[in-house]
């Protein structure tokens, strides 16, 4: 069975309780992934609410809009950034 690896950064790591996870994944988009994760309950819906997610990264590429996530992908979920 296919899966993806999800990486959480910054405050999202604390909010969801871990830095990374492996998720069964037959295929789909970033929008479908976010909807699925938000569906895990109130804590997840809050942690991954619109203003809390700044960018999604698929296989080390920042993606815009509703992008495809192929099985086997690495997906980074990035909260608003605070560098410099």
């Amino acid at each position, binding site marked *: 069975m296919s899966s993806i690896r999800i990486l959480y950064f*910054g*405050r999202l790591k604390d909010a969801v309780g871990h830095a990374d996870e492996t998720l069964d994944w037959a295929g789909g988009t970033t929008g479908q992934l976010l909807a699925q994760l938000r569906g895990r309950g109130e804590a997840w819906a809050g942690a991954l609410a619109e203003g809390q997610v*700044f960018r999604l*990264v698929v296989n*080390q590429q920042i993606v815009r809009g509703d992008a495809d996530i192929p099985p086997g992908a690495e997906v*980074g979920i990035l*909260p608003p*950034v*605070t560098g*410099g």
Partner: protein
Amino acid sequence: MHCDITIQTAPFDLGAEEAALRVHAGDAGALVAFQGMVRGHDAAIPLTALFLEHYPGVTEAEIRRIAGDAAARWPLTAVRVIHRVGSLAPGEGIVLVLVASGHRAAAFEAAAFLMDYLKTEAPFWKREHFADGSQRWVDAKASDGDAAARWA
């Protein structure tokens, strides 16, 4: 254009980086440097440390891409970016941007552009550790987003 991007835990040295950059800067007449330092008294409680994390591989590639955008926009001969991650004490340097150009306005604008990018778009996250033992992830500032919007 010469372009050198590093994410590191070790401190950096402005003088050494300036000397190294000038080897690649050709006949540039203007060099602008920006150095950002950890502020110890920005909040009500004194800061003891700042912890920074990034997305290895992705962060470096994104900074390299934006440096290329800057080089397409201004006549630059060399760009050097160092961003630190890990635990930093107040007063320590966090970020160093050096830009060499034949024109001083180009050097100033490109350095400000790169800093605005690093503040608003580059994948870095800061956590503040305070003297009372508390800690918190830093909130993104609306003013930084406004600064970056100047270049859109």
